[in-house]
């Protein structure tokens, strides 16, 4: 620990997803952050997700934490900001920054457009498409500072006196998370980007037409507007030296091909890539599906583009040395990123961090985010080619590690004021119509609306509000609610999606439980989307009637909470399990770690070094030493779990040691780190001939001096990526290459037979090295594996070469099989049954239905606990390298720390939580099955469903599932919905 415990603020530079997630996690842990955004507005400088748009999801939530934590006072965002100087010591940095506040404060701006109308110079520009709001910017070149806009701005959001300023901030730690360096015209010259008309980047077509996302129109040729039939997708980083691809780039290409075929089934879609690099449990399935629906995949060595007269593209590609030509009508480039060389240089100067030899930020070995300077962290695409969800995980890693330098938490969520008891009062509804600072006045007859609304049953008070979202109007409106004496409130406003917290706050400050309020979207549902004023009035009235009936049946309630146990239980003592235990213990969490075998270390302990040449053994030994030394960690070897009862925050685990002694432990969270096993081999005479090895066997033989072969053939993907094991094990390619390089040093002939080489990012270097050192590579077809025959003094391997279809024969002394890993299916099945966390068919744990959900969404909600407070990590989750396994452990620690220190947790949405009417519940368990958060269980004694409030996000799935009407959420009770819909039907 460093000195100066008082500092509780972290500076985050840049808006990549790791930075955002650090802000989020630190905010939840009670720390303040300052975010420096180099852009003038929220997403002017795009991060990896927004540059690449990997899936056709909305991604709007990427900015979620910013809004929320600014609102809570935990986050301060500076725009047009940069770092000028960094002084001080870890834990006590003084950073000089420059910033320029935006002219228009987006948090107060109501988008009334009056400034645009009044500006004589046309200097005010509107940036649409940012989140779902418009952002108003002033073009400084055109602006004469006449001040008319400032004068007319009804909310005081626009202030012209903004200047660039410098200031010094004191922070305990610094996080460098600058954004993706995208490629553009010059970088993509080879592919004719922005020169040939029908060549577009994937991100151009995904959001080219933002109001609709990816539709057939997105695919129309830019030259003539025709829908192309023949489409090529090129994974450019595999053919372009300045680009780097992340693990997901080829998946993006495959995903795009599938989406095109879905929308446009008759299209002929071809993907050009050198190697398919999707690994892990789910990605390979998409690849298979693409092939199934007729997507062609050509693994070309190189591609060249030429534009023809009719704007078609002629693609010349090399396949195993041979040239081929084919014409396409439309070409989509799936691009990578450039190294952030400039940014790295800048920080080399500012704070002496190091760059790596590719121009990315250097990261210390066996860490995911530590730079060479203590207290300064780097994450996301700044540290190497990165995709989701790893970028997001890095945010949690940084948050849990940077605590070393931080003092006490200082931020806590504000407590609501006491609410008035309205239970004995008659229903009195107040309708408050926001005029949006007069903006609505000429769009709807708001005075008549007021008169008509007052005739609606139960409405006792109607009032027109000036505004409802500025600090001043919020105060005023709360007072108006109090003074009107109503006990139900309809607030007719713009959009509760964006401003929900403000409106809820207004009602709460008015002394009413938020369940007693309805927020009507006057702007979104009426004013802005229709033409006819008379009809608008009618529609607004029917919406008010519906809201009034809903409120008539409102049932206020104070909200629920539950206890949360502060201990952690770790199953499995491999690298991931040990790392989780060590990190938790470091933060004062009591950890119980059990290991099935008689020693710690797991599968990685059997490897000596990795391809980067780092000493794995030494690292694992240091982990083991720490585990044994740390008083917060209790270790049980030869132990297995017998039963797990309970739910997040309240687990009871029974396990037995040496099959004899039974222990019982309580825990708030459980980490499953059951790791993986080397897959059993049954093909290629393995076990019948001593000169056939797995990669691991061979390493052992080399180390023991028992390996004397002069020529070696390695076969990759043995027993992998097939029906039985439909995934890539992730580690074999690196292992094979590492061993090939070692053998070459001894002069051994090496041939590697492969389907795809999964060496994305920096690992590509080792491939090049291997080619230079004379390792022979031959690709074979996915469904045509090499055949091996035993000869007198070795083996004869025959293989049909991909592309040329030539049958090649290679003689060798030793045959080495890359066999990959498999999960510990038996143990995982048992644990899956005990915890309810689902397994994929292949035995890995499934923590979300798709690979991206966990990364991009639900930033505000307790989705850390979505898997019931059970965190599968390391290879229990999916095939991973050691670093990636460590990251899963560290990020899970980051997630769980948010809760482990709290004794009680409230429902995340406060009063909006699902409940059980016990008089109706018969304990059928329908609700338990459909709950996405494990927030429900059946009390077997009472035969009733029970809700665990802090796990519930009030989606209502249980309400629908419940045939008895016993499950309910208070703001959408059956009678409320039915009455409201009745009112809407009129």
């Amino acid at each position: 620990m460093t000195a100066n415990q008082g500092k509780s603020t972290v500076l985050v530079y840049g808006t990549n997803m790791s930075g955002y997630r650090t802000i989020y996690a630190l905010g939840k842990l009670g720390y303040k952050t300052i975010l420096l955004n180099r852009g003038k507005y929220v997403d002017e400088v795009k991060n990896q997700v927004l540059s690449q748009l990997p899936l056709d999801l909305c991604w709007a939530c990427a900015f979620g934490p910013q809004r929320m934590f600014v609102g809570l006072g935990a986050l301060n965002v500076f725009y047009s900001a940069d770092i000028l100087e960094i002084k001080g010591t870890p834990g006590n940095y003084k950073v000089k920054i420059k910033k320029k506040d935006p002219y228009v404060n987006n948090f107060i701006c109501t988008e009334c457009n009056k400034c645009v109308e009044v500006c004589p110079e046309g200097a005010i520009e509107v940036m649409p498409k940012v989140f779902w709001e418009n952002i108003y910017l002033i073009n400084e070149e055109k602006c004469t500072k006449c001040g008319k806009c400032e004068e007319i701005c009804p909310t005081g959001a626009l202030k012209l006196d903004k200047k660039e300023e410098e200031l010094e901030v004191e922070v305990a730690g610094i996080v460098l998370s600058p954004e993706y360096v995208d490629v553009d015209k010059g970088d993509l010259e080879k592919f004719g980007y922005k020169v040939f008309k029908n060549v577009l980047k994937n991100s151009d077509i995904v959001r080219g037409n933002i109001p609709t996302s990816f539709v057939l129109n997105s695919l129309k040729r830019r030259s003539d507007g025709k829908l192309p039939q023949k489409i090529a997708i090129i994974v450019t980083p595999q053919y372009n030296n300045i680009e780097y691809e992340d693990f997901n780039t080829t998946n993006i290409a495959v995903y795009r091909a599938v989406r095109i075929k879905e929308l446009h089934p008759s299209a002929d879609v071809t993907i050009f890539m050198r190697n398919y690099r999707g690994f892990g449990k789910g990605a390979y399935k998409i690849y298979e599906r693409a092939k199934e629906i007729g997507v062609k995949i050509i693994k070309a060595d190189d591609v060249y583009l030429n534009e023809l007269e009719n704007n078609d593209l002629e693609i010349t590609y090399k396949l195993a040395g041979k040239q081929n030509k084919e014409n396409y009508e439309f070409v989509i480039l799936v691009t990578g990123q450039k190294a952030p060389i400039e940014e790295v240089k800048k920080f080399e100067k500012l704070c002496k961090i190091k760059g790596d030899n590719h121009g990315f930020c250097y990261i210390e070995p066996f860490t995911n985010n530590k730079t060479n300077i203590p207290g300064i962290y780097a994450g996301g695409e700044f540290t190497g080619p990165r995709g989701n969800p790893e970028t997001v995980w890095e945010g949690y890693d940084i948050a849990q590690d940077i605590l070393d330098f931080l003092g006490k938490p200082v931020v806590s969520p504000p407590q609501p004021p006491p609410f008035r008891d309205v239970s004995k009062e008659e229903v009195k509804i107040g309708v408050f119509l926001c005029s949006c600072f007069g903006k609505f006045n000429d769009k709807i007859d708001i005075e008549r609306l007021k008169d008509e609304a007052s005739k609606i049953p139960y409405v006792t008070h109607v009032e027109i509000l000036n505004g409802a979202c500025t600090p001043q109007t919020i105060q005023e409106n709360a007072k108006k609610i109090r003074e009107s004496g109503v006990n139900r409130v309809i607030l007719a406003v713009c959009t509760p999606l964006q401003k929900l917290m403000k409106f809820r706050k207004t009602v709460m400050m008015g002394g009413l439980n938020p369940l007693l309020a309805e927020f009507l979207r006057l702007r979104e549902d009426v004013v802005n989307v229709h033409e006819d004023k008379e009809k608008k009035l009618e529609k607004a009235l029917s919406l008010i009637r519906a809201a009034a009936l809903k409120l008539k049946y409102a049932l206020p309630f104070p909200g629920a909470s539950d206890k949360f146990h502060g201990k952690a239980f770790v199953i499995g003592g491999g690298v991931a399990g040990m790392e989780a235990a060590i990190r938790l213990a470091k933060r004062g969490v009591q950890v119980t770690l059990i290991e099935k075998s008689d020693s710690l270390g797991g599968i990685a302990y059997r490897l000596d070094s990795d391809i980067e040449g780092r000493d794995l053994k030494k690292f694992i030994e240091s982990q083991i030493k720490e585990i044994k030394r740390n008083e917060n960690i209790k270790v049980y070897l030869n132990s297995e779990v017998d039963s797990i009862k309970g739910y997040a925050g309240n687990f009871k685990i029974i396990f037995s040691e040496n099959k004899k002694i039974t222990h019982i432990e309580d825990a708030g969270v459980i980490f499953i780190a059951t790791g993986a096993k080397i897959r059993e081999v049954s093909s290629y005479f393995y076990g019948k001939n001593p000169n056939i090895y797995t990669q691991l066997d061979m390493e052992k033989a080399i180390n023991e001096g028992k390996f004397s072969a002069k020529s070696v053939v390695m076969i990759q993907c043995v027993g992998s990526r097939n029906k039985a094991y439909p995934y890539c094990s992730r580690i074999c390619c690196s292992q094979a290459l590492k061993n090939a390089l070692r053998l070459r040093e001894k002069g051994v002939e090496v041939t590697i037979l492969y389907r795809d080489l999964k060496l994305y990012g920096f690992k590509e270097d080792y491939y090049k090295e291997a080619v230079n050192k004379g390792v022979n590579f031959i690709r074979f077809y996915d469904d045509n594996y090499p055949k091996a025959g035993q000869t007198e003094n070795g083996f004869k391997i025959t293989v049909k070469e991909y592309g040329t279809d030539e049958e090649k024969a290679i003689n060798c002394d030793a045959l080495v099989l890359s066999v990959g890993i498999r999960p510990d299916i038996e143990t995982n099945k048992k644990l899956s049954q005990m915890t309810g966390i689902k397994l994929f068919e292949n035995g890995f744990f499934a923590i979300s239905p798709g690979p991206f959900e966990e990364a991009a969404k639900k930033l505000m909600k307790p989705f850390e606990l979505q898997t019931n407070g059970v965190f599968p990590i390391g290879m229990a989750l999916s095939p991973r390298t050691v670093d990636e396994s460590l990251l899963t452990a560290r990020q899970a620690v980051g997630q769980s720390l948010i809760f482990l220190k709290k004794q009680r947790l409230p429902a995340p949405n406060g009063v909006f939580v699902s409940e059980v009417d016990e008089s109706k519940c018969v304990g059928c368990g329908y609700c338990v099955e459909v709950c996405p958060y494990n927030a429900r269980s059946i009390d077997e004694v009472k035969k009733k469903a029970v809700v665990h409030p802090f796990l519930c996000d009030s989606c209502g799935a249980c309400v629908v599932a419940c045939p008895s009407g016993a499950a309910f959420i208070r703001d959408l009770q059956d009678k409320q919905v039915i009455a409201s819909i009745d009112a809407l039907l009129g």
Partner: protein
Amino acid sequence: MTWEPKIVYIMCSWCGSGGAESASAYGLKYPENIKPFRVWCTGGLDPAYILRAFLEGADGILISGCHPGDCHYDTGNYFARRRLAALKTILKTFGFDEDRVWLRWVGHSEGKRLVDTAIEFNEHIKKLGPNKI
């Protein structure tokens, strides 16, 4: 007075409503007789409500939520699809026009898609005429 269909547009509070907000932000227009009603998640939309609205004389019911895989609650829309498939199948078996109930996913930024959907559905219901139950 010309007949105007009574249409309830049920949308989830995330992507569906986001679509409505994008539509407003882009200033896109749709017919006034389409009245929105919000649930947290389409997975939290009890088909009984739709059925009742249908039997109580709604001319059409439109439902929009997040695209599959993009549900705010991860899985709600998958369950919603099953529930609605069941409801529509039952309506069809009984000889009702199940095409008075539409399910179309609308993403958060897809204001145009929402408005197009509202217009298309309104035209479709106008063609079918009033719901004579």
